[in-house]
């Protein structure tokens, strides 16, 4: 059966399914129980599974992640919610020095099936610390997996796959897409969690992104098509590890690549993509890989976030530049 669900509802349905399938799955976070989370992603789950499996924790991100590690040591599969991207940092120490390394440190004797859900990104007109894209900090940390759904279907399936993973997964939810509806087929066979995917085929240039950026890239591809330029669009889905198969193949086909994300460009996911694509497809490239990113400045106040966030025009400018080489 195919349903039309918002991304928030789709992730909610995925959580519900994972909790039904395995009673060791439990949710923890701030305001996730009675309130259902500030974005309502966990709505109804406390009623369905009880307060021992949907924990409204004390207000402490280090506490949430640190205790999730202890729970994981004893066989639980905690799914932590960080309320907003900008508030993950009190938990940064536990995530990067403990969660990420625990398995390697104990030569595989301890597994860390912990998921950390992070609503991330801009476009919501909020005050500071509510619109950030901190992916790169975590991608830089060995031992962590990072994924980000762009559609309701991926929200539904990927959250379940993330929970099933025996490694820690940071699950970046594009909060500006929470209210967008999309088709969800609960029976659909899922692509692997870390597979990147061509979501629109094209021949002149490749544009790559993840999360909320996908809508912008598709919009850019529409406009380009009207102007006679054919763009191939790739949804990364996974930021660490990155599945380079479809990416390199596309780069070899089009010879021109633009990568886009909201996060600042310095030492970013885009930098990593540009470097690796250059290494692996050098002889096919007709132009340097260009990055379209947020500027290397603190996230702007609401009234001017629009000049910071890459839009279709900015992507198309970069496409023009790679085509001009």
């Amino acid at each position, binding site marked *: 059966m195919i349903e039309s669900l918002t991304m928030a509802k789709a992730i909610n349905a995925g959580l519900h399914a994972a909790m039904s399938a395995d009673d060791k799955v439990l949710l923890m976070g701030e305001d996730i129980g009675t*309130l259902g989370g500030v974005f309502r992603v966990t709505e109804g789950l406390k009623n369905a599974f009880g307060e021992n499996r949907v924990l409204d924790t004390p*207000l402490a991100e280090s506490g949430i992640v640190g205790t999730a590690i202890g729970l994981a040591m004893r066989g639980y599969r905690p799914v932590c919610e960080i309320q907003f991207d*900008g508030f993950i940092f*009190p938990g940064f120490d536990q995530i990067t020095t403990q969660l990420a390394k625990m398995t390697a440190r104990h030569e595989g004797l301890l597994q860390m099936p912990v998921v950390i859900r992070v609503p991330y990104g801009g476009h919501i007109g909020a005050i*500071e610390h509510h619109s950030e894209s901190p992916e790169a900090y975590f991608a830089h940390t060995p031992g962590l997996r990072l994924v980000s759904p762009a559609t309701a279907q991926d929200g539904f399936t990927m959250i379940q796959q993330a929970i099933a993973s025996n490694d820690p997964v940071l699950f970046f939810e594009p909060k500006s897409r929470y209210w967008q509806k999309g088709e969800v087929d609960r029976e659909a066979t899922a692509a692997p969690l870390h597979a990147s995917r061509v979501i629109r085929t094209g021949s002149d240039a490749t544009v790559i992104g993840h999360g909320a950026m996908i809508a912008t890239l598709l919009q850019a591809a529409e406009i380009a098509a009207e102007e006679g330029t054919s763009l191939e669009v790739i949804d990364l889905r996974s930021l660490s590890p990155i599945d380079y198969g479809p990416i390199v193949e596309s780069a070899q086909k089009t010879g021109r690549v633009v990568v886009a994300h909201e996060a600042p460009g310095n030492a970013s996911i885009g930098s990593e993509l540009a470097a690796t694509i250059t290494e692996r497809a050098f002889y096919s490239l007709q132009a340097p890989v260009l990055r379209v990113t947020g*500027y290397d400045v603190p996230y702007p106040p609401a009234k001017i976030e629009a000049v910071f966030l890459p839009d279709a025009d900015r992507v198309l400018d970069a496409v023009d530049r790679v085509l001009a080489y």
Partner: protein
Amino acid sequence: MAHEDSELLPGETPVRFLDQDGRALDETRYPMPPLSELQAAYRALVVARRINEQCSALVRQGRLAVYPSSHGQEACEVAAALPLAERDWLFPTYRDAVAVIGRGVPPAEAMVLLQGDWHSGYDPREHGVAPQATPLATQLLHAAGFAHAAKLRGEDTVVVAMCGDGATSEGDFHEALNLAAVFGLAVVFLVQNNGFAISVPLSRQTAAASLAHKAIGYGMPGVRVDGNDAAALLAVMHAAVDRARAGGGPTLVEAHTYRIQAHTNADDDTRYRDRAEVQEWVARDPLIRLRSYLRVCDALSAAAEDEITAEAEAVAAELRDALQAEHVPDPEDLFRHVYAERTPRLEEQWAMLADELARDAESEHAESEHAEHEEAR
């Protein structure tokens, strides 16, 4: 500094001077503040309430991005600012715009953050007010460091550091209190316990008898005070400020109060609390309590009330005027103060953006000319 336990533990009941009808209670732990100060506090309370109402209205009109109201908590906001000398400093949160204004920050500047124009709109040095903090409890450590600087400089500056009940669960809260106590710093930690951290009740933040009980663990006194009784708050805050100024070190003050509005305009509090509970607290309104007392004391004439109302209306008008203006921040500001000096990379990025904005403006111009042209035909 060694202390007797009994000096550090909070009393069995919160400090309270006034009952809800404004009758003076038999409170012997602190001296009642002088009437003149209570009159000043009442004036500030009325202005505070008006600011809260005005800002909530401005959110509904789309003039503010968000407003975390301190409606019902105004006595705490007033008592945070009033006992401070000009040279002292306040470290507020997102909920404390009223205390910020109470320190003399012009209302329009205090609203810059919530309006989405910039991350802070006032000069902290001019008013002795740190920027309003959003990441919970981070500002408490800054406050301790600021007080440490005063100590190193041989100054008698006092710092009031504010946070909510939920924020007391963050690691930074514990680190700040511990550091302040270890170094004997002049910080008064004022926790507004309004019962909730968004939807999460106090029982999920602590298993202690009260938040003030945490103080003894750090070796500083903890005081519980009725957060809707301006007289009690002022008495307690004065004592803590005086103690800090005299070199006696930090104090943790827990004010029992209640958030009458939802967490912010974006929150739906009907999901997690009873209307009856809210109504109970509406009946404990801090304004009514102090007003009744002043009336009983014959210390609030009708003329004075008119004057106070007029002052509150003037502040509200100032807020409305400031927020009517369609101010758009300058995009170049994004690049200006990231570093003491702009880096070449930021120069480049600004040049790219400036070029893009110029092209946008040009095509907009061309479009409107075209439209005019069409109209003329």
